[in-house]
C-alpha cells in the first residue's frame, strides 16, 4: 500500500520539474492536481510546474524541450488569456484613432457626367450578367441557341455569366464600383424593376439610344411601356415579366383550392405550412390587394396596415417562413401547403409534380419585371443595345419564353410560340389574355427615404 493517498500524491509530493538538471535523465512529468492553491497552501510552489504538463517529443534534446516549453507557456510569446486581452485592448484603442477620417461619399452622381467612351465598334463583344437558369439551352444543355445565333449574325461575342442570385446581394456586389464611377466589367445586367429604378435614380445606368432599338421599341407589350420609374423606357427594357400568384400543393391541402391571401393568413388548416416571399413588394403588394388597396398608390398608412396584418400571421405561427426561390422545393415536398409564388417557377414545377396548382386571386395579382440595364462605365453600350433589340424579335422571344416560361414582354409572339408548343401559347401565365392582364397591378416606385422606411419595417416583420 502506498503511504500517500492518490490526492496527496498528485498535489504535494510529486517531483518538481528541474530544467537545469534534466539532461541525461529520463522524463519527469507532473500530474496536475487540484487548481485551488488557496485551499491547500502546500500546492503553491507547484503552480509554475503545473503549467509544464505537455507531452514533448523524444527527438528533441532536453534543453530544446525546455526552451520550447518556456516560450509557449511563460515567454513573451506565450499565448495566454492575459496577452490575448491585452492585445485586443491595444487594437481597439489604435482603431479609434483612425475613425474620423472615414466617410461614405454620396452615391448619387451629379448629372450624367461625360458619357464613357463606347468601344463597341472596335471590340466586338458584350458581357451579359443574368440570373441562373434564365436563358434557353440546347437539348444537351451545353449551348445557348439564341445567344449563339446572335453571335453568328452580328459577329459580337457574348460573355454570358450567371452571377445574379439575389437582387440585394448583387447590388451590394456592384455598388462599390458604380459608386466610384468605375466599369463593373459588365455591359448588360438583368435586375428586378425596383432595383433597376434605384440604379437609374442614382445615375448609375446609361441612357439607351432609341436608334439602336427599333425592334424593341416597336414590339414592347403595352402593359410594360410606361413604368413610373423610367418614363419612356429611356434606360431599361424588360427581359421578362413576373407574375406573383398563389400556389398550393393539392395533396397537402387535401385537395382544397387556396386562392386568396385571406385564406393563407386565416385558414387554420394551413397553420404553419404557409410561406410568403422575402421580396417586400410581392408580399406586401399581394396583401394590399387582398385588403382592397391598390399597391400602385400605396400610402404609408396602407403599408402599415398590411404589415400589421402579416405580423398577426407571424405571431400566430400561421406563416412558417419568408422565402426566396427556395419555396419551390418545399412546396413540391409538401412541407409548404400553400404560398406566394412566381408564375414562371410554377410552370416548371408543375411539369415535375402535378399536385402543384396555382390560383390567381379574385382581388388581383402583382406583376413586376426583370429589366436589362447598361451600367455606367460599361464599355460596349451599342453592342448591348443590339443584344436587347435582338431579343425583341418575335421568333427569338418565343424561343426564350418557351424555355424559361416567364411572362413574355414582346408583342406578336403568340403565333411563334404556338408553332413551338400550342399549349404554351394558350397559357395565360406566359401570354396573359385581356381578362388576366386586367387583374395585374404593379407596386409603385418609392423614393429613397420611403424605400428605407418600408424595407426596415419589412425587415423587422421577417425577423432580419
Amino acid at each position: 500500500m502506498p503511504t500517500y493517498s492518490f490526492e496527496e500524491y498528485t498535489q504535494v509530493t510529486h517531483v518538481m520539474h528541474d530544467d537545469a538538471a534534466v539532461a541525461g535523465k529520463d522524463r519527469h512529468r507532473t500530474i496536475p492536481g487540484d487548481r485551488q492553491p488557496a485551499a491547500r497552501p502546500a500546492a503553491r510552489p507547484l503552480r509554475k510546474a503545473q503549467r509544464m504538463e505537455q507531452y514533448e517529443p523524444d527527438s528533441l534534446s532536453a534543453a530544446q524541450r525546455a526552451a520550447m516549453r518556456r516560450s509557449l507557456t511563460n515567454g513573451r510569446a506565450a499565448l495566454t488569456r492575459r496577452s490575448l486581452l491585452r492585445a485586443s485592448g491595444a487594437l481597439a484603442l489604435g482603431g479609434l484613432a483612425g475613425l474620423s477620417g472615414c466617410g461614405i461619399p454620396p452615391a448619387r452622381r451629379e448629372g450624367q457626367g461625360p458619357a464613357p467612351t463606347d468601344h463597341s465598334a472596335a471590340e466586338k463583344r458584350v458581357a451579359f450578367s443574368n440570373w441562373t437558369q434564365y436563358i434557353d439551352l440546347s437539348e444537351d444543355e451545353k449551348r445557348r441557341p439564341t445567344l449563339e445565333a446572335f453571335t453568328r449574325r452580328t459577329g459580337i461575342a457574348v460573355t454570358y455569366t450567371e452571377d445574379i442570385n439575389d437582387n440585394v446581394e448583387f447590388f451590394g456586389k456592384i455598388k462599390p464600383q458604380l459608386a466610384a464611377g468605375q466599369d463593373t466589367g459588365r455591359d448588360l445586367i438583368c435586375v428586378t424593376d425596383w432595383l433597376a429604378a434605384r440604379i437609374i435614380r442614382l445615375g448609375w445606368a446609361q441612357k439607351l439610344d432609341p436608334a439602336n432599338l427599333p425592334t424593341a421599341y416597336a414590339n414592347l407589350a403595352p402593359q410594360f411601356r410606361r413604368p413610373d420609374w423610367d418614363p419612356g423606357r429611356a434606360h431599361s427594357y424588360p427581359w421578362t415579366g413576373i407574375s406573383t400568384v398563389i400556389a398550393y400543393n393539392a395533396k397537402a391541402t387535401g385537395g382544397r383550392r387556396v386562392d386568396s391571401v385571406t385564406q393563407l393568413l386565416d385558414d387554420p388548416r394551413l397553420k404553419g405550412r404557409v410561406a410568403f416571399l422575402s421580396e417586400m413588394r410581392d408580399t406586401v403588394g399581394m396583401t394590399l390587394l387582398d385588403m382592397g388597396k391598390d399597391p400602385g398608390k400605396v400610402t404609408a398608412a396602407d403599408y402599415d396596415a398590411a404589415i400589421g396584418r402579416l405580423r398577426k400571421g407571424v405571431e400566430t405561427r400561421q406563416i412558417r417562413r419568408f422565402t426566396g426561390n427556395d419555396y419551390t422545393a418545399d412546396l413540391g415536398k409538401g412541407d409548404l401547403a400553400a404560398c406566394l409564388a412566381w408564375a414562371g417557377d410554377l410552370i416548371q414545377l408543375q411539369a415535375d409534380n402535378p399536385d402543384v396548382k396555382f390560383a390567381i386571386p379574385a382581388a388581383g395579382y402583382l406583376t413586376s419585371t426583370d429589366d436589362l440595364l447598361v451600367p455606367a462605365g460599361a464599355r460596349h453600350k451599342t453592342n448591348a443595345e443590339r443584344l436587347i433589340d435582338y431579343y425583341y424579335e418575335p421568333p427569338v422571344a418565343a424561343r426564350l419564353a418557351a424555355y424559361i416560361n416567364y411572362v413574355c414582354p414582346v408583342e406578336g409572339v403568340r403565333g411563334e410560340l404556338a408553332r413551338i408548343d400550342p399549349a404554351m401559347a394558350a397559357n395565360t401565365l406566359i401570354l396573359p389574355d385581356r381578362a388576366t392582364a386586367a387583374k395585374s397591378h404593379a407596386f409603385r416606385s418609392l423614393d429613397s427615404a420611403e424605400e428605407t422606411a418600408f424595407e426596415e419595417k419589412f425587415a423587422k416583420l421577417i425577423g432580419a
Partner: protein
Amino acid sequence: MTTATDTPPRAGAAAPAVRRRSARRRLVPYWLLLPGVLWLLVFFALPMVYQASTSVQTGSLEEGFRVTWHFPTYWEALRDYHPQFAKTLLYAGTATLLCLLLGYPLAYLIAFRAGRWRHVLLVLVIAPFFTSFLIRTLAWKTILADGGAVVGALDALHVLDVTGRLGWTEGDRVLATPLAVICGLTYNFLPFMILPLYTSLERIDGRLHEAARDLYASPAATFRKVTLPLSMPGVVSGTLLTFIPASGDYVNAELLGSTDTKMIGNVIQGQFLRVLDYPTAAALSFLLMAVVLVTVTVYIRRAGTEDLV
C-alpha cells in the same frame, strides 16, 4: 555556419561582413512577420476601422454618410434587436454544449481506443468539409422534412411532446423551429470541437493513466483527476472555435429556421443589404463582437486555464 569560414579571409573585409550578416540576421524575424502583419492590417485592422467609423456615421445612400459621432445608433440597435442577441447566445451556447457532449467521447475514442483506425476516423471527422457548407445545411432540410422518417420517429417516441413544451419545436414538425437551427449549428461546427479536443487528448502520456491505476484511482477518478484537467486546453479552444463562429452564423437560421428564430447575423445581413442602413449594421457587428468578447472572457476566467493551446 560561421561567417569567417565561408568568406575568404581578406584583411579588413571580414569584420564588416560579419556585422552585415548579423544585422541581416537580426532582421530575419521581422521579415518573417511581415506577411502576417500585412495580412492582418489589410484584412482585419483596416476593415475594423472602416466599420467602426461607419457605425458612428449618419446619412443615406443618396446623400452619402458622414462621421457625426452619432453614438445613439448603438443604443437604438440594442433596444430594437436585443431579443435576437439573446437568441444568438442561446442557440450558439446550446450548440457549443451539444458539440462538447458529442465531441468529447468521440475525440477520446479516437485518441485512446481507435488504434490503427485513428487516421481513418480523423479523416471521417473532416470528410464533411469536402462538400459545401450550403449543401450540408440544405441536406438537413431533407433529413428533418415534415412527415419524414426522423420527425416520424421522434414523434412516435414522444420526444416532440417534450421539445414542444420547451418551445423548441412546434406541433409535429422540426423544420423552421429553434431545434432545427441548433441541430444545424451543432452539425456544422462539430469538427471544430473534435479536432482541438483530439490534439490535446492525444498528447496525454498513456503512462499517466497507468500511474493513476497504480495509485488505486478508479477509472472515474482517473478521468476526473488526470484526463480531464490535461485536456482542458482542448476543451477551451474547442468551445471558442465553436461558439465564436456559431454566434456569427446566419446560414443555419436562414435555411432551417423561421421568422422568430432569426439570429443577429440575419439582422446584420438584412440591415446591410436590404435596408441599406450601414451604420446600424456596423453598430450591430460591433455589439456582437463586444457580447462575444465578454462572454468568452467570463468563460475563460471560469474555466481557469491560462493556456489557450
